[in-house]
């Protein structure tokens, strides 16, 4: 579904991504791990062009999205993103948060959008919060709403940027449960996370990034139990 060729990203003089080549297949759950500063978040944010690649090509469902003439808004409709800081719209209710993009971007009528929203709220277990404002929710609830908001656009792939890193430990579980459900339903997912247990349990492929390149990748079995590179072993020994 997503093809990444020779992806480079510079921030001024800093060369963060030094040539990434990757493929993400439909239905795959890809988990990206690695030390901070390795470029994992930058890589993820390049996938939906929140960061503009300095060099390289990214193809989504066969079309090149790094091509200058490409309309990125259309592509983003099909890619959902969940942020570490949730980024819910504080001046809108939960219902409005979820239905805003379907109504404005996909031009659905209000009733249809709300029906989809109610369904999603049920999936994440928060249907009673439809008229609440984000400031009235806990961190875990906010993130689950954020996931529902991204799902409302019926994306083909979901991108997660350290979705539980800003949560208190007791709330991490409820968010991971929702993500597990999504994976079981066959959603293509790319997840940047530090939750190794989750990665092992749910991931189809683990990608270990370090210093701007893909150091090692494989099934959870391969990467966690039999890491090939020294750097991978060092990292895993610190976090496991």
């Amino acid at each position, binding site marked *: 579904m997503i093809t990444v060729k020779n992806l480079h990203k510079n921030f001024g003089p800093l060369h963060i991504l030094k040539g990434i080549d990757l493929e993400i297949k439909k239905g795959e759950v890809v988990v990206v791990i690695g030390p901070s500063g390795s470029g994992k978040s930058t890589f993820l944010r390049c996938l939906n062009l*929140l960061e503009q690649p300095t060099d390289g090509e990214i193809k989504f469902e066969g079309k090149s999205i790094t091509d200058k003439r490409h309309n990125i808004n259309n592509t*983003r409709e099909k890619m959902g*993103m969940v*942020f570490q800081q949730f980024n819910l719209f504080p001046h809108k209710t939960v219902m409005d948060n979820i239905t805003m993009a379907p109504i404005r*971007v*996909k031009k659905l009528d209000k009733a249809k959008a709300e029906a989809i929203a109610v369904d999603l709220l049920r999936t994440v277990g928060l249907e009673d919060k439809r008229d609440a404002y984000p400031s009235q929710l806990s961190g875990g609830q906010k993130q689950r709403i954020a996931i529902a908001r991204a799902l409302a656009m019926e994306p083909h792939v979901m991108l997660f940027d350290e979705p539980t890193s800003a949560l208190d430990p007791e709330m991490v579980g409820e968010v991971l449960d929702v993500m597990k459900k999504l994976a079981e339903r066959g959603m293509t997912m790319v997840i940047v996370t530090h939750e190794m247990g989750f990665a092992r349990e749910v991931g189809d492929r683990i990608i270990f990034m370090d210093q701007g390149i893909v150091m090692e990748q494989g099934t959870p079995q391969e990467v966690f139990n039999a890491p090939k590179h020294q750097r991978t072993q060092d990292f895993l020994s610190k976090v496991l």
Partner: protein
Amino acid sequence: MELFTMFWEYRSYFLTGVQYTLILAAIGVLCGFVLGLIIALLRMSSWKIVRFFGHAWVEFLRGTPMLVQLLIIHYGFATVLGVSFSPIESGAITLTINSSAYLAEIFRAGIEGVDRGQGEAARSLGMSKGMTLRFIIIPQALKSVLPAIGNEFITIIKESSIVSMIGVTEIIFQSGVIVGITYDPMTPYLIAAIMYFILTFTLSRILGVFERKLKASDHR
């Protein structure tokens, strides 16, 4: 002449003055608000020339005295361009464009103050730049700068006195007329000062009420 007696005797003059002062200040702020928002958006444009125009607008209008701007619009335009405004029109135009420059800066600060993640979330959902600005960024920016806009209104009420220079019959001009009639050079201006104070004080209290209401609705 005793303050109160003079005020009562010439109350019709002062009333006219207050009307013109308030109307001009209101126009200045309301039209300045709309214009200021436009200028703020121009400054965010992707075209360099448009951005430059926005910058120049703000820098020039904030960097020169409003009196000079007023004289250019009222007299300069008339003699050089043959475009002749009535005093009220010149006054309204000057207050509007001057206010728009300050408000554009206020809006810019407000827009930049909105968390980056908001824009990123909106765009990642497929919303265009314009949609994001319109539904996500600007509403939040406006909410945060409302107090500053209220302050601008209060400032403009006082600054509007400048249009007395071209003959608009607002508070200061009317006070001058009364000086001419009564030969009392002090009392009319004292009364004027008190009137300005009442106007600005009342307005700031009203604004305070609005701000508290706004805070309450923030569901903290």
